[in-house]
């Protein structure tokens, strides 16, 4: 039977932060996740590293936490952060009184909000609406949730931390008022096993309520769905926020070659619901085009949705009014059950801090007095400039830097060696994200790469502007030749699954140039490959 001192349930940013923190303090920790890592709220959001400006009026404590954590994540997760900076802009239709409150709030929270002239604002963001009447620069940034998650795993692994993906909690074992272990099921193979532990941490996010229920406990979590749009270009070079009372569809975040606009806010019964509709798309566009008037001229790549896991203490507010803060529930003091703690709420930007608080509590219970070091030590070392320079001739134009940030030094070294040895491994599988066959194969061979979509989240294959149009075939072929599971050997199934996954996000935005791209995809895969017409004879 597998054993761990601590088992963390939930492979979102919070759970991974806890895994890393505890591992660094020498606690034997295992994390389980029912799907691939970062499948819930931690990847289904803007990818915004908050400066705290968003909370400067409503919740200054959250604002202070954000700006502190913002500085820390830039330092420890250098290759996950695009330090693009942020703008808060007020339109002539927005309440001027709010601006004054906001400026004061930023000052009180320690956020450096720099008033800039309109001339300067239009110079740095030429597409901004001319209805903008004031603009402030803040230290917002874009952050890659997938990369941060996997780098956190790397970091934890150096200290003995372990993960199991596609592993679903099926049962919590309680004996004499104490949690002693869990039963889990592998969702790909169906295999069931028991894992013994001293402490179980419920970091299930939107699913935390269901997990608590398995131990007969009640934790109030209200999933609050946010829908976002990804556009195929950089509409702005900065994160652009509307300077008004927080509302739907008022933040634009540039990421590499795309921009994410969000989000809506809607209470839903289950965090599993990631469905998006035309109505939500229309709503986001209608608000977004107030900030960027020509918004509808851009191609929308896809719509996606995730749920904020809002903690609901009895009698609290809901929706956007509910706190973005987090809560730690010790079930021993609250419910009389030893060996189980729950963490809910919070936001991506402050996940490290949340993990630190949780690890403090757990270490206290375990009698471990190691201090937290997660704010000082980098997640992964950087690839040196010299190594990148040497490798430059092997990669497509901008590909060296992208590969280096995605891979980290050890994998980068192996990928470069593979490309040097065999020039065919230099094939660019994904032009949009500059992914070479060598990089794809490096990730596909890892034990956590079960299906093609897992490799996608790691390498970004298929996530760029073609939305897998060209690379689905290439990726399926590469996966078939090096994937380690039986699934990898059915390339048509992998291709279909890959493209159907993309389709889910394209469907609600089937207008404008998405129509054109979809016609291309269908023309290739249905007509030229006939993947929808397998022969029965």
């Amino acid at each position: 039977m597998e054993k761990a001192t601590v088992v963390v349930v939930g492979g979102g940013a919070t759970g991974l932060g806890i895994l890393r923190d505890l591992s660094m303090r020498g606690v034997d920790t295992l994390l389980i996740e029912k799907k691939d890592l970062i499948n819930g709220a931690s990847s289904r959001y803007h990818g915004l590293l908050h400066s705290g400006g968003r909370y400067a009026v409503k919740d200054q404590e959250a604002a202070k936490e954000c700006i502190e954590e913002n500085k820390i994540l830039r330092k420890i997760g250098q290759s996950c952060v695009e330090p693009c900076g942020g703008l808060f802009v007020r339109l002539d239709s927005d309440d001027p009184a709010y601006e004054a409150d906001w400026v004061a709030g930023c000052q009180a929270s320690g956020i450096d909000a720099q008033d800039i002239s309109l001339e300067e604002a239009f110079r740095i963001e030429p597409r901004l609406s001319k209805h903008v009447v004031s603009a402030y620069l803040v230290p917002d940034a874009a952050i890659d949730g997938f990369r941060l998650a996997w780098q956190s795993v790397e970091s934890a692994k150096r200290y003995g931390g372990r993960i199991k993906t596609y592993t679903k909690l099926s049962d919590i074992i309680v004996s004499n008022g104490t949690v002693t272990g869990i039963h889990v099921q592998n969702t790909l193979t169906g295999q069931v096993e028991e894992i013994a532990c001293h402490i179980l941490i419920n970091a299930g996010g939107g699913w935390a309520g269901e997990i608590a229920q398995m131990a007969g406990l009640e934790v109030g979590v209200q999933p609050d769905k946010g829908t976002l749009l990804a556009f195929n270009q950089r509409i702005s070079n900065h994160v652009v926020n509307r300077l008004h009372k927080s509302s739907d569809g008022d933040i634009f975040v540039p990421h590499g070659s795309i921009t994410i606009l969000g989000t809506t806010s809607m209470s839903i019964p289950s965090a599993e619901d990631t469905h998006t509709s035309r109505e939500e798309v229309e709503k986001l566009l209608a608000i977004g085009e107030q900030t960027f008037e020509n918004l509808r001229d851009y191609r929308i790549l896809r719509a996606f949705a995730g749920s904020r896991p809002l903690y609901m203490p009895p009698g609290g507010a809901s929706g956007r009014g509910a706190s973005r803060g987090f809560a730690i529930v010790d079930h021993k003091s609250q419910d009389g059950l030893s060996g189980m703690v729950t963490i809910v709420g919070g936001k991506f930007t402050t996940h490290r801090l949340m993990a630190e608080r949780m690890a403090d509590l757990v270490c206290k219970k375990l009698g471990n007095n190691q201090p937290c070091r997660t704010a000082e030590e980098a997640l992964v070392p950087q690839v040196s400039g010299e190594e990148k320079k040497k490798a430059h001739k092997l990669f497509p134009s901008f590909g060296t830097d992208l590969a280096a940030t995605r891979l980290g030094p050890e994998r980068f070294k192996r990928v470069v060696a593979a490309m040097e040895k065999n020039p065919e491994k230099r094939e660019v599988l994904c032009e949009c994200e500059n992914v070479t066959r060598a990089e794809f194969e490096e990730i596909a061979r890892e034990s956590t790469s079960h299906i093609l979509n897992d490799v996608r989240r790691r390498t970004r294959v298929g996530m760029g502007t073609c939305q897998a149009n060209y690379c689905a075939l290439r990726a399926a072929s590469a996966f078939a030749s090096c994937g380690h599971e039986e699934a990898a050997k059915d390339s048509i199934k992998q291709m279909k699954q890959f493209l159907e996954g993309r389709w889910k996000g394209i469907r609600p935005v089937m207008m404008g140039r998405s129509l054109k791209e979809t016609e291309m995809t269908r023309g290739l895969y249905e007509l030229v490959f006939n993947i929808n017409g397998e022969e029965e004879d």
Partner: protein
Amino acid sequence: MIRSDVLVIGAGLAGLMAAYTSAKQGKKVTLLTWGEGTLTVNSGTIDILGFDENHKRVNNPLQGIDNLPADHPYKKIGRQALQEGLASFLELTKQHELTYIGSMEANQPVVTAIGTKKRTAYAPLPMVLSEQALTKKKIRAVAIKGLKDFYGDVMIENLKKSFGPDKDYGVIPIDTGLMGGRDITIQDVARYLDTPQGNADFLSQLEDLDQDTLLVLPPIFGSHGHTVYQTISQEMKATMVETTCLPPSVPGIRLRYAFRDELRQLGVDIVESSKAVASEIEGTKAVSVIANSASNQRRYYADRFILATGGFYSGGIEMRDFEKPIEPIFHLPISFVKGEDQWTNEELFGSKAQGYAKTGIETNDLLQPVNKEGQVVLDNVYIVGRNLAGFDFCFEHSGNGIAIASAYKAASVGMGKEA
């Protein structure tokens, strides 16, 4: 003033076929094109009908057409135009050393770029799986070093399903020497095989294969006609068969060259890099089409206009906002399905056509655009190919058949040679 008898807008298969048919009747034809035309992304096989409405495979396309609903474009085009149009297409291709083999009454299998089978009515000679080819015991996929989008492993995996477990399968790697630190495309290899050196180099790597071998290759045998394929075939003991491929699609490019050469011979004025953006209309007649090139704007006057600008892919139909599709040149009425649930299916690849894909221009049986009441909107404008409403060509595998037949009909109607 630029005036022609017929102005064709668009240079995909439908536009080229319309220009050809008009010019053959002695008309003065101008062909306006913006970009390459879609033949570079066209499979090059002439699919007439591959699947019915319920995604059941159609074995006999002519019979399959009879069972289509009344508002399907084939029903308007009619059997005669389809038959005559195809005969005319076959005549043109033959003159330009392209041999198409097949029948309107029996679909035949061809091998795709991933080793699956696809069925089509007329296949270019190098893709045809002859009876004799199907008896070969050894099946070999040719993997060209550095070539993108054609992968030996995936080919073999699917070829086994396509040709059965009793055969012997393998991959033969060959090196064309073209890979100078960058990926190469099928078109690069085809151009290489256009040269005597490429030809000889290819043969030297594969000539010792025995006659019990079926070689499956991407369409690399030259970018013009089928002569390179025929010449090499004669010198090889093994049998060779080409597959479909991702763009740049060589079988489509070969067709494009054939049409281009033919249209030039017939004196068609091909105006490239000109985007038709608007039109001038008087009553129920179109007078001229206004087109922008890089340097200027021109008016093209004609007696007859054939609209072959395509659908959403080519920009012949645009939809900037939900439920507001437009045809940007003549602003013709567009037929489309309303409601989010009807617009798309939950699955990208399913057993039901996609609603959005049927968006197009409704016509009468003469292919003139009509409004909701069925009245002709412009009586000297004709609609062809993917501009037509009521069919999902990706789902039913009918695009090239409809393109050829509708273009033939639109160019023949009222020209003394009624289709």
